């Protein structure tokens, strides 16, 4: 496939892949039963957030245990922007369907163009939050960074639940645009339409992430992750690169948060709880850190396991009390187990071929001969060279 497309510019190729993904996703919404459309949209949103997290953790080696906080920033900003635009009167007539005297009584709905505006506002807010956290994170290592992000992940949902302005525990309704009137009800439902828009937005973001992570920024990130001193000597601004990783990752989480609010039409702290942060961590780790395709598998796993266990428990005809106990907790335990097993067994993750080439170049320059040993040096070999003391 890549050979066929060899002549086309990378950006066109990535846009093509994104378009293919969107079409495949749209086709999926027609195959799935009506009750599965929302979980599918949820998968799309988690995929976006997990892709951002996998870039942060896999490429820059920084850990975030509270990534749902950035989703909250994006989601709440999107909700406020959307409602403000609605109140300014940027509305259209309600969709056809109501007939007789009810048609005129139905309130107007938000115009479609308000959605990209409010989503963008959410992304901007998340970028600011990401820059703030990233500035603090650039000075921290390992468990310290984990502790700070964990505290953010626990504190932010409790803040949103505390203040009346943010709607408290129950949140508030958001005036999101409806399906356009030319789309007849028997072609696509409202849920399908929302899934499509989420697909388009996520695909654009994935294309951008792919471009960033394989471009100069991605190379800098890998260099800083593997050896800070060497990266600094090579002229890479270490701190700025680390902050940038947080910004990019927060931007994707912010977009995902806004999309989640659009999908549900409401915003409440429960969407962005600490459990959501853990699910994002799971999605990023299970698929293999640093891999965007892996984030897709991870997000699928995270959304599918709770549904599958619910079906399983239902099939077992367990009593309602037992079923309720198993409902939220069995998937949690299974996902935790998967997290442990994957992390302990996937130790010999190979580095990307490009980075290996860079490293071998460096070694050749060092002692005037090509790297010795096996044809494909493992990640372990790379580390031994890097971590001399």
């Amino acid at each position, binding site marked *: 496939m890549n050979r066929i497309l060899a002549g086309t510019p990378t950006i066109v190729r990535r846009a093509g892949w994104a378009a293919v993904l969107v079409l495949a996703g749209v086709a999926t919404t027609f195959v799935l039963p009506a009750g599965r459309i929302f979980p599918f949209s949820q998968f799309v949103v988690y995929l976006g957030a997990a892709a951002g997290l996998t870039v942060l953790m896999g490429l820059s080696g920084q850990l975030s245990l509270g990534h749902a906080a950035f989703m909250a920033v994006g989601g709440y900003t999107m909700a406020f922007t959307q409602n403000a635009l609605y109140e300014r009167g940027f509305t259209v007539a309600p969709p056809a369907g109501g007939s007789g005297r009810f048609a005129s009584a139905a309130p107007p709905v938000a115009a479609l163009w308000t959605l990209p505006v409010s989503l963008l506002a959410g992304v901007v807010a998340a970028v600011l939050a990401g820059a703030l956290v990233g500035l603090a994170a650039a000075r921290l*290592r390992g*468990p310290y960074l984990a*502790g700070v992000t*964990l505290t953010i992940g626990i504190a932010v949902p*409790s803040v949103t639940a505390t203040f009346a302005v943010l709607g408290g525990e129950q949140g508030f309704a958001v005036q999101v645009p409806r399906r356009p009137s030319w789309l007849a009800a028997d072609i696509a439902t409202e849920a399908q339409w929302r899934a499509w828009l989420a697909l388009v937005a996520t695909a654009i973001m994935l294309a951008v992430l792919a471009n960033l992570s394989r471009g100069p920024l991605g190379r800098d990130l890998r260099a800083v992750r593997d050896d800070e001193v060497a990266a600094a000597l090579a002229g890479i601004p270490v701190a700025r690169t680390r902050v940038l990783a947080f910004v990019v990752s927060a931007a994707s989480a912010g977009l995902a948060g806004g999309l989640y609010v659009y999908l549900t039409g409401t915003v409440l702290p429960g969407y962005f709880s600490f459990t959501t942060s853990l699910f994002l961590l799971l999605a990023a780790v299970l698929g293999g850190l640093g891999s965007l395709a892996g984030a897709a598998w991870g997000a699928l796993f995270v959304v599918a396991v709770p549904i599958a266990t619910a079906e399983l428990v239902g099939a077992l005809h367990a009593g309602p009390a037992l079923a309720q106990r198993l409902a939220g907790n069995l998937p949690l335990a*299974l996902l*935790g187990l998967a997290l442990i097993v994957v992390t302990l067994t996937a130790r010999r993750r190979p580095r990307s071929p490009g980075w290996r080439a860079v490293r071998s170049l460096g070694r050749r320059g060092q002692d005037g001969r090509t790297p010795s040993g096996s044809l494909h040096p493992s990640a372990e070999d790379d580390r031994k060279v890097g971590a001399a003391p």
Partner: protein
Amino acid sequence: MQRFGYLTVDGLASGAVYATFALSLVLIWRAGRIVNFAQGAIAVASAYLAWSVTAHTHSYWLGFVAALAGGALLGVVVERGVMRFVPADRPMDAVIVAVGVMLVVQGVLGMLYGADHRPVPAPLPTGVWRVGGVATVSPYQLFVVGAVAVLVAALALLFTRTRLGLRLRAAAFAPEVARLLGVRVARMTTVAWALASAAGALAAMLVLPSGLGLTPTAMDGVFITAFTAAVIGGLDSAVGAVVGGLAVGVVVNYVTGYAGNPNLANLAVLALLVIVLLVRPGGLFSGVAVRRA
């Protein structure tokens, strides 16, 4: 002024609990350079065990002992069964695996006991004594502070006056040399986990009756507070953890007391943690530059 005094006493009592939990984090950090993010879940599991024992035997103190023993056992199981296999040079993996352990423990607890909130009664009266109309201290607060004082004294004796304590310190300070001199370093790590998890269980037993109640995630907030306390103390120093715990307890109590909003506690903790890490990243009691773990 009277309110200030009450908030201070109350803050010191909850700070004593944070100090205990911070101590348990410090014990494991010193032994293996791992921050045990599963510590809260392990402590809650011990508290559930105590709840079951108390329900069967109608004795609070049997449950109390069961929690400490169960906590120590669970710590050993987690260390021997999982954490031992994390390579020492990958701090991110240690965090992720510990989070996985936390999810498993919380999931299993939820399946066994259900997620509904269980109030935990205090073993002693919680009403404060009034001396001349001034609220002073409650019997339960005295019990909490006393229990923590006993624990701290016992740990101090263990580490400074016994051969086991000497071995523990040697294994943590210079593992290679200690091994050459015949100290079983891996076993010392396990002992540290057992001690730490028992201390964590004690913290859970002391803090849950003060309104928190029993849910699988009950200790999440306590964990971040105690982590902040440990970081203030330098993450490496037992004295620092105790002082940090008391300080954090008092500060958080002022914030929530004067603002009249208990939900602000987590935000106050976050602010405190960020300030400490930005202003004095080595902590207040850290002697060596070990921050770049």
